[in-house]
């Protein structure tokens, strides 16, 4: 256990330069964005003097190193600054929007795993068969369409034409009240509050965007599951297990699948962080108040604090996620943390 703790600490230490790097790069990137935020935010009829005034107010009149120093200082106090586009402190905004994005992404991944993993296993048990080819074609088709296109198409069919889906108005239709915020995840909060109606309403809102994302993430998960299962199934210990008379079920799930889980978990982590960053487009289509759409707006408006805050938040999430994966890894694989590699 001690050893594992040390491994975790070592991981965290490794993440430190990454976070520093992200802070620096995001700072430089935002300053490289074209446009003058002072002019943008001084308002519609602002003249040169009021733009200058705004610039001073925003602290943009200082030199770059000075600005960076101030930024880091603020950061150290946990202050990410204030977004100019939305007029809210970035921290608050992220805290409200992150759960929305996470909820969407997690549900999408859950759905995706629910489909892709069985497909991958199925394909792996019959490699080269038509089932295998069909699975491959299916999941590849899913990853071949841009998400915003899938999203709009789904809305057209399931909302506009048939009316089966609820109006794509974000996380909850306006007739429902948000459940009291505990985790920020509506499904969880509604369940905690015991409010079945809101729970279903939130779920209904999730279906289309989650399906859009899920469709996009099927391929990597299914492919990796298939590959991992194939290599697990062809390994020696499976032969041993078969020779010992274990049932096919036990062999497939107890032996092969658990071993195949390792690479699948890695892929899942990558897919997760990728999806979280990429659901920008889906969020826009479904009016989902997540961090992705926040970032896009901020970026287009050269809203420094918001962009920096978003990037930092994602980087922290990325680091946390990797840590989580490592932990999951060491739970699944006892070899981790020892000098085995």
């Amino acid at each position: 256990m001690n050893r594992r703790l040390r491994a975790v600490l070592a991981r965290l230490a490794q993440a430190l330069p990454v976070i520093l790097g992200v802070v620096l790069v995001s700072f430089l990137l935002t300053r490289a964005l074209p446009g003058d935020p002072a002019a943008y935010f001084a308002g519609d009829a602002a003249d040169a003097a009021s733009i200058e005034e705004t610039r001073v107010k925003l602290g943009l009149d200082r030199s770059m190193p000075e600005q960076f120093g101030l930024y880091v200082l603020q950061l150290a106090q946990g202050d990410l600054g204030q977004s100019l586009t939305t007029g809210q402190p970035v921290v608050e905004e992220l805290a409200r929007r992150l759960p929305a994005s996470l909820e969407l992404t997690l549900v999408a991944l859950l759905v995706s795993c629910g489909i892709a993993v069985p497909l991958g296993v199925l394909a792996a048990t019959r490699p080269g068969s038509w089932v295998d080819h069909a699975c491959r074609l299916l999941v590849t088709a899913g990853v071949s369409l841009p998400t915003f296109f899938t999203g709009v198409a789904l809305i057209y069919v399931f909302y506009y034409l048939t009316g089966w889906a609820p109006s794509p108005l974000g996380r909850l239709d306006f007739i429902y009240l948000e459940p009291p915020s505990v985790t920020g995840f509506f499904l969880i909060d509604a369940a905690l509050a015991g409010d079945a109606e809101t729970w279903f309403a939130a779920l209904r809102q999730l279906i289309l965007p989650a399906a859009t994302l899920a469709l996009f993430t099927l391929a990597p998960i299914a492919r990796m599951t298939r590959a991992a299962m194939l290599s697990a199934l062809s390994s020696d210990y499976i032969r041993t297990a078969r020779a010992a008379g274990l049932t096919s079920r036990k062999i497939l799930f107890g032996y092969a699948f658990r071993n195949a889980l390792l690479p699948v978990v890695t892929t899942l982590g990558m897919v997760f962080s990728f999806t979280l960053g990429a659901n920008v487009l889906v969020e826009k289509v479904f009016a989902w108040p997540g961090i992705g759409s926040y970032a896009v707006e901020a970026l287009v408006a050269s809203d420094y604090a918001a962009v920096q805050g978003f990037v930092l938040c994602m980087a922290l999430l990325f680091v946390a996620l990797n840590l989580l994966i490592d932990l999951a890894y060491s739970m699944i694989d006892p070899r981790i943390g020892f000098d085995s590699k």
Partner: protein
Amino acid sequence: AGDDVVVVVMGQTINSLDLHRTGTNRPSYQVAVNCYDRLVSFGTKTMPDGSLSYDYSTIVPEIAESWTVSDDGKVLTFRIKPEAVFQDGSKVTAQDVKWSFDRAVSVGGFPTTQMAAGGLLRPDQFAAVDEATFTVTLDKPSKLALPDLAVPVPFILNSKIAKQHVTDADPWAMEFVHKNTIGSGAYKVVRWDPGQQLVYERNDLWTGGPLPGAKRVVLREVPSQATRRALIERGDVQMSWNIPNKDASELDGKVEVYSTPIENAIYVVSLNYNFEPFQDPDVRKAVAYAIPYEEIFKTAAYGRGVPMWGGSGIETIDWPQPSPYVFDLDKAREHLEKSAFAGGFDVPFSIDLGQSDWMEPTALLIQEQLAKLGITSTIDKIPGANWRTASLVEKRLPLALETFGGWLNYPCYYFFWAYQEGHLFNSSNYANPEIEQLVAETLDLPVEHPDYAPKVKRMFEIAFEDLPRIPLFQPALSVAMNGATGYEYWFHRELDARKLAKG
């Protein structure tokens, strides 16, 4: 949704409840309209299509009961309605007005600039004579002063509450007002989820006019315009704000669509005088003749708005009015041949990413025709933050699409902003001494003055001859309604929910 809840969708986000704040964006101005009162307001008229519009020609009371103008035109005295109360029930006093006006001229940025347009420059111009009497003293008489008090900027805050939130660093309670509405207006904001929704609830204590029919107005932000269209068409929302022209023309008939030409506004092609070829008057004319106006009006505006080409002489002082130019490639070629750039030239053609719904097709159509003259243009989409800087602040775009609409509906006001040297919306770097003089002379001159019309017509003439801005068409603000009534058009182009009702 209940019977008295109206749901409105729009694409843009509201970023503050305080119009005075630095960085407050346009959509947020509606909060000043709906949740606050001003001393006076514009009247309402019914348009030919039955929709409502504000009426620039009449000024009506809002929180002021009555007002008088001194003989020299320099002192305006307002009497405040005795029954006027803020949302917390406290009386609206002249002190509140004074504090609010002081705030508007002191915070800097847009509110201060807008106040200045009406000659309202310094706190010492405002005085609370007693609880119910408030005076404004102008440096010189101006026809713009009273209308400028009817725009959203000089809204009246509850200074007693605001002062509780004043700090040394924040003498105008910006932080507090940013997140709270402390007005006497028709609505109060009961919920604001930035980036998602704004919920208005009717203020039953309102005295500024007849109580709104809708008890609640829910404003939802839906970035995707396709989604917004689906929503309004299916009737899941009652109002879709600022819909694209295409949707407007297609939805017309299916749902209620109001397209109101925006007063004092034109979509133009801006030719920058700092760019050498455009210093040549023949090149500018060549461009003006090479613009396929009809096609643009059809594909970019879908016929919504008012054509601004092919005019047959300046007869009125209405602004905007059609330019004398039409699409005529032969004439364009003639002009270009006369110029020093007969062989054509290369020029970047800049458009705003945020307005690409009309700018992109327009630019493409113009680009295609210019190419026939040998003028090679490359289309540059500039994202929001950079657009203002590049086009208005630095004024460095050689060829760009532009739009400007003056809140105060006077031609001289428009020219003041868009044709005077160094002024913000003069993105062409246009400088003409005669125009400078004419604007200075007409700006404060009453419209009825006999000198006014000839001078303004002369301005039009010069503008059409010099062509720093080639008018394309007067845009329209389109709003779709499905299951609600009471839409009123305002020059500020933001939602006025005070007459909204379900049905």
